[in-house]
């Protein structure tokens, strides 16, 4: 998994809008590079691409950071769960509804679940429960049994839908 970007083992990305240079000289995956740069909000739940806790958006695409070589992300716009906060560090409607619904127990899955939910709400403003469940099909949450997460996403979608115009993709 050697980086093949030709640069001297670093990758330039923007993480939640901030320009960041990530180390990638040892063929790091994106999650390793992000965590080494202090982005501990990107969680590693399986190292094998099946739990979704490492979800980030790369140029708007839902991405498993544990499977993606950092070297492949040069120039990308990366969004982690912290990217959901507004400029004053205020909570996004999704985050507020997760708190309200008790949808975060241990919280370890939550960064990945919230990024998946955020990605869903970028594409549709009025998802059905089945669409929400589908959007979470790549996430494992061992604590909550998902039900309160689905309720929280539904209520966040309703709130955001009412509060048109919806905030646009950063």
């Amino acid at each position, binding site marked *: 998994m050697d980086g093949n970007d030709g640069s001297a083992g670093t990758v330039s990305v923007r993480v939640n809008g901030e320009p960041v240079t990530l180390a990638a000289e040892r063929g790091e995956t994106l999650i390793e590079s992000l965590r080494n740069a*202090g982005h501990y909000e990107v*969680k590693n*739940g399986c190292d094998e691409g099946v739990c979704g806790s490492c979800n980030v958006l790369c140029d708007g695409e839902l991405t498993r950071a544990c499977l993606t070589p950092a070297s492949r992300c040069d120039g990308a716009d990366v969004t982690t769960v*912290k990217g959901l906060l507004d400029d004053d560090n205020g909570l996004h409607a999704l985050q507020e509804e997760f*708190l309200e619904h008790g949808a975060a127990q241990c919280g370890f899955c*939550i960064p990945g679940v919230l990024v998946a939910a955020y990605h869903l709400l970028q594409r549709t403003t009025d998802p059905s429960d089945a669409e929400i469940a589908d959007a979470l099909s790549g996430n494992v949450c061992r604590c909550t049994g998902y039900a309160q997460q689905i309720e929280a996403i539904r209520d966040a979608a309703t709130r955001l839908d009412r509060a048109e115009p919806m905030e646009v993709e950063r």
Partner: protein
Amino acid sequence: MTSPDNAADAHAPVGESVEKVDGWGLVTGNARYTDDVPTENALAGHVLRSPHAHARIESIDTDTAEAIPGVRAVLTHEDVPAGRFTRTGFPYPAPAPFDERVLNETVRFVGEPVAAVAARTPEAAERAVDAIDVEYDVRKAVFDADAAMEPDAPTIHPDEYENEQDGADPERNVVCAARHEEGDLEAGFEEADAVVEREYETQVVQHLPLEVNTAIAWIDERERLTLRTTTQVSHICRDTIARAFDLNRTDVRVIKPRVGGGFGVRQDVLPVQFLAAALALETGEKVRLRNERSEDLHASQTRHAQDVTVKTGVRDDGTITAMHVDVTSNTGAYGCHGFAVLSNAAHEPMSLYPCENRLFTGRAVYTNVTPGGAMRGYGAVQGTFGIESHVDEVADAIGMDPVELRRHNLVQAGDESFEPEFSESKRRLESVGVGDCLDRVCDAVDWDDGPDEPDDERYQRGYGVALSMAKSGVPSSEFARAHVTLETDGTLTVRVGIGDTGQGSETVMAQIAAGVFGLDVDSVHVTADDTDATPWDNGAYASSTTYVSGNATEKAARDLAVQVRDLAAERFDVPADAIELVEGDLRLPSGESLSLGQFAEEAFIGEGGPKRRLTASGRHFTALSPKPFAAQLAVVDVDTETGEFEVVRLANAVDCGTAINPEGARGQVIGGAVMGLGQAVSEELSVDAEGVPEHRGLRDYEVIHAPDLPDLDVELVETHEPTGPFGAKSVGEVSVLGPAPAIANAVRDAVGVRIDDLPVTPAKVWAGMEGEP
């Protein structure tokens, strides 16, 4: 404990669905778990694991490994303390044999640690592990519990060990045997009109907390061993590590940051914790050791697989006259929780039907698979599957509705439970809402009038119920202490050694303390993350926290409130009991009020008397363990042409006493039910003929995902437990127990096929419909 005269001060936020006190960090990504700190200067730990299910290590050559640049330590069984212990996470001496060392000379399951390496880089650590040369004398292995008791089976623990359990026969691999009889079983069977007997089997599953087991260990500036780690029992972890390495308790510190789930696997002191400690002690440096997911799945403790044989005598009117439950529990390579899980397997579910003549017999057996351990439900998942499946078979044998049969025999308040003598709850159950729970789930589908049967030839609908009972702590074992301080701004600091791994216990403690003072939760800070800062608490297991630690917290808060009232009474010359604590204020009988903050500050300044810092402590020990109950009902549609089935609905009614945080309690019920659903229909860890795990990692382990969910309804059927904090019992485990038998009963109702071994799969249903045994 809430006594009648102060029960009146039970007020908000108790009973409110407040947000979790740690919630902001969880939803913003700011929460810090074990591995979420910079460790670039730490040594990387790596473990060599056994490829054999049973082998004696003849020799280990570590020279090449040690010569690799950057390698700082290579530890084998020759380098770790000779003493043996149990990882079982109970206070010393746990009810389990002392049958393991940090690294063992004989390895007893595939994946058992053989050596541990610490090196400057992960790459060097991996290379070193590859370079260790081990010569194994491979022994015959056995994986099935019954086979392990046969005379020709290999003896897995031939050497004598300490803390042998009752009924042990190590030669035959029997870790312990249990027998508990009440009444006269044979007479009970004589009285019966029908006697029904059947065996039920449960599979191995794993907790799979989403954060893998991890430890960072170092020697601090006071030369103390410090661990930052994924634990749910920080004080027991400290105690066990200190004993294993012969250190003073005060020379070990355990930090429990946010922890990503537990469900029992972190009730035990984990191999990563022992090994990280050993490597830190050896090198004097910081060591980071983190399992990969596949290591966690293969080598961390699991739920014990059990065979549960149930024999029941019943009269034609539905009265159960006798019940014998026999359990064989496969405890794997070490006797971790072997006795207590076995005992719980029968005692909890048998308590639901208090017949006069009952017998439990059982044994836990060593085999060469990954050790079993504590897992949410703790034996009762297995026993409840057997007994609650069997109750439907018994009903069928006498032509009675299975709900009717349950109602006829059901435990009531004031009845005795079926449990060992050391529990005072044995003699009297105070709050018992299981009958109401059953009514609620039945009403949800109109059971009594005959629930809906869609008119479909191909897809047959079935309904099944299951009842369950759990506990609120281990009676006569659990001990908790809490310290509460009134700060000079009127906020409270609570120090309590609980093990919140996500279930919300820090929030519940905050609500309890706040409830005593009429404060909001934001005015309470709970510190529970460090053995240096908290008094002893057994930690999070056996559904004990709300009941045991909650009682300690309530007592501390009430004691503090008494101090506040007494001091105010002196100062304002009014009777103490005429002073009210409401919304952060002290209200005097004159109608005047003063904020708690102002009061505390003046007390500390020393106005009108000596300087005082207002602080109190509470402790709770109990021989009681009040029981939460649940009724769960599954609705299943079976495709009669393929055996495929869908669980379309799972209704849950739970009696947890007072729900201190209803939304949190609901989350526990749903989370447990969905974990139980996985146990019922999809999860299974298996090994091949050599004992090698058959799954590569999480990708092969079928957990429930969001699109798999049935309709889930949850009703909290509140009762009042007089000995609980504000009337509360526990809620963490009870809902994991019922889904498997409820679903098996629903399949039986739909197509007449009894699946008696978990998981229930389409292939088994199909085979049953085809008449295969």
